[in-house]
């Protein structure tokens, strides 16, 4: 089915979605690691608009934006397990929740993570409210995609690892077991999937990286006030 390359960083949760997708479909691919502080000329050529990862290169043509890439992979390698359902309404619902995750869940949690004191206290509320909405999505389901694993689990998958990192390094409690029992149950099932289990970035490296990132955001904010 052609030559596949993935431009990624070792830590990006967005790139991780694509790693999972490629592995789940059994697609052979080459990884090109990017240092975002020193972007390669190839990355800038393939993603001139955003200059970001992930970028999927299929037979030399680039596809950017992780949700766009996921759908492209699903449609192009369409003989193996499909990520998105067939039914248009179910597809629309999945796309809605994917957008909700990327637009609201990620941004609100990140805001709570990179702040401290009063600003963090103010940011936690909306973050937890968005997680309440995520929790509700799991009612009566094994996975976000329903009975079995699918597109939405790839989208929400970052929660299974990165929230723990944020909790450990950000001094915040996000996934309380009384408030989010379904997310916790899903997390166990999700992390049990072999492709997921083998693909997580190194825990210690993630902790160090995000700790530094948080400190950077906090000191930048302090400097500009």
């Amino acid at each position: 089915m052609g030559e596949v390359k993935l431009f990624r960083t070792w830590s990006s949760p967005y790139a991780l979605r694509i790693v999972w997708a490629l592995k789940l479909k059994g697609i052979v691919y080459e990884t090109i690691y990017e240092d975002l502080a020193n972007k390669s000329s190839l990355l800038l050529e393939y993603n001139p608009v955003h200059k970001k990862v992930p970028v999927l290169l299929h037979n030399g043509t680039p596809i950017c934006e992780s949700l766009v890439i996921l759908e492209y992979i699903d449609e192009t390698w369409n003989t193996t397990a499909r990520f998105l359902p067939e039914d248009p309404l179910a597809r629309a619902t999945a796309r809605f929740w994917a957008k909700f995750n990327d637009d609201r869940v990620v941004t609100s949690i990140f805001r709570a993570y990179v702040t401290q004191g009063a600003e963090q206290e103010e940011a936690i509320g909306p973050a937890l409210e968005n997680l309440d909405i995520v929790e509700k999505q799991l009612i009566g389901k094994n996975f976000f995609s329903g009975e079995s694993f699918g597109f939405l689990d790839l989208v929400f998958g970052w929660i299974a690892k990165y929230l723990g990192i944020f909790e450990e390094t950000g001094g915040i409690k996000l996934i309380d077991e009384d408030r989010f029992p379904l997310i916790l149950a899903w997390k166990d099932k999700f992390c049990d999937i072999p492709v997921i289990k083998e693909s997580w970035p190194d825990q210690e490296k993630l902790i160090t990286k995000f700790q530094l990132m948080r400190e950077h955001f906090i000191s930048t904010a302090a400097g500009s006030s």
Partner: protein
Amino acid sequence: MANEVKLYGATRSPFVCRAVIALNLKGIKYELVVEDLSNKSADLIKYNPVYKKVPVLVHNGNPISESLVILEYIDEVWNGVPILPQDAYEKAQARFWAKFMDDKCFPAVFKAVISHGEEQAVAEAQEALQFLENELKVKGSKFFGGDNINLVDITATFVAFWIGAVEEALGIELLPKDKFPKLTEWSDNYVNCQAVKDSLPPRENLVAIYKKRFGKA
């Protein structure tokens, strides 16, 4: 089986207008349920509890929210004039540009508007719009979709019609012809497409609304 289609919203919203254009493009009969966003109906809140926004498409009682999600849904359910390309790569490109429009262009343009054309805000809006200008240049076609309009053109309705209205209302310049010859030409072609013409709100209404909402006191 009854095919009941309702669209919640009013066409003065560029997002609602996208859905109207898609419905008209496919020749789908629908009922427009106009919402007063300062006094949202119980139905709207029921159908879009997460955002409580328009547009919401309700098809046989099933709600679909978010304009780009609605456009893809309409294309998948109803045959006729295609909104997305068939080819997976072309489709990915269309989705990429539609997302860029909403994630970068619209917020930048909005910022320029609410700042009454503040220099930095306008520069950033034009920087975003420049990517669209370049894309048209590279494609060398009449529309983002080629000879016919597609998802990207429909998503860019606010560029073709709303920008002109705010420019007039606020006396600012966002999309000068000399800087954006391709986008200007594209806008003229786009608003003259039948489905688009049938869907756009009267321009003077928009100008009046924006004068009132964003104009200097």
